């Protein structure tokens, strides 16, 4: 239950961040007055940064269409155009979006495999809400990445930073869990906030603005969360949830699930989903702080 609450809270934060990004992206292009205009303002946010002029052209044209049905048709057409028109400059953006989409598909695929292999997991308490939240978060992270990468050059830094942050989480997690009685290793926990701080700083350094750093942080957050989930879920399915810890052995008899493996896989997949949200949210927030601090230290614009 605690996991579910954490998932819901973090999911709300992720969705809130996504809405904020969408508003910032679409802001300034037009002044929406009706639903078709609002749709168009939202749609042109999907255009690449070097296509922004075309978004203004679409908005300018819509102002001269009076019939409501024609305004709807025009805006819907512009939405499909905005989604299909590629950026003018070929860069690493498509690769980053493709990799993130593939990672999201991998996350879904692993989860579906787990549910087919251990179908009793679906009978567990809170499984369906957790799956729905998981799907929404994955879709949100992928969409956020696609929008950001089309609007800025933060993709490469975000991708590399996300993989690095995930690697830090894995190394620190394995080390601390393997040596719980060694206080020296607790210092390693400092690496968890330092890694996303570095990504935010690197994004600002490279992009010259705090906004570029925050964009890199958001992309790295999506990448880190998905990579972490892929690693943890793969481990859970390959080992059938083992080795079982004392807490799992204690809680299993009260779970209502038919066997220990099903319970452990369910528990570990739930942990992986919670970490997907936790890692992506903390990476985004700490990275944004790092980006803002770096921009102020460099006297660079904190926003684009």
């Amino acid at each position: 239950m605690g996991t579910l609450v954490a998932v819901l809270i973090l999911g709300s934060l992720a969705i809130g961040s996504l809405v904020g990004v969408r508003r910032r992206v679409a802001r300034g292009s037009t002044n929406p007055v009706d639903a078709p205009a609002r749709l168009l303002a939202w749609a042109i946010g999907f255009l690449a940064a070097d296509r922004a002029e075309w978004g203004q052209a679409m908005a300018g044209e819509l102002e001269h269409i009076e019939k409501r049905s024609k305004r709807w048709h025009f805006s819907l057409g512009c939405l499909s155009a905005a989604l299909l028109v590629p950026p003018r400059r070929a860069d690493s953006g498509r690769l980053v979006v493709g990799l993130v989409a593939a990672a999201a598909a991998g996350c879904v695929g692993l989860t579906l495999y787990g549910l087919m292999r251990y179908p009793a997991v679906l009978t567990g308490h809170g499984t369906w809400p957790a799956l729905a939240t998981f799907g929404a978060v994955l879709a949100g992270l992928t969409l956020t990445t696609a929008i950001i990468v089309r609007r800025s050059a933060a993709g490469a830094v975000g991708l590399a930073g996300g993989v690095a942050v995930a690697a830090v989480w894995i190394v620190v997690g394995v080390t601390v869990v393997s040596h719980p009685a060694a206080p020296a290793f607790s210092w390693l926990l400092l690496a968890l906030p330092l890694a996303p701080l570095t990504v935010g700083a690197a994004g600002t350094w490279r992009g010259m603005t705090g906004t570029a750093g925050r964009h890199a942080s958001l992309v790295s957050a999506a990448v880190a969360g998905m990579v972490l989930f892929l690693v943890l879920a793969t481990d859970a399915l390959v080992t059938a949830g083992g080795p079982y810890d004392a807490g799992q052995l204690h809680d299993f008899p009260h779970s209502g699930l038919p066997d220990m493996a099903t319970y452990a896989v369910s528990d570990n997949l739930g942990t992986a989903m919670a970490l997907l949200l936790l890692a992506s949210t903390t990476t985004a927030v700490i990275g944004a702080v790092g980006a803002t601090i770096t921009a102020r230290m460099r006297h660079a614009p904190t926003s684009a």
Partner: protein
Amino acid sequence: MVRVLAALVAEPSRWRYGYDLGAEVDLKSGSLYPILIRLTDRGLLEATWESGPPGKPPRHLYRLTPAGLETAAILTAEPVSRPSAVPRRQLREA
């Protein structure tokens, strides 16, 4: 794309609005804008802004460049037998 070029080459010196051009060649905005963008990227189309009245956004205007005129002349001179070249209105009326 050929229909757009043919419409633009009919009055090469005239600046055209996107919506009017789309209505003339019977193309929705979802098809028209990718074509206009491709033509502009290839240097076949030039665009300019027309200031609107206060409170209204400026409007984009389009016409062919000299290279676009040459390309349009070549493409529109070729006999076109593909069904897609037949205007949709004619198909509906048939």
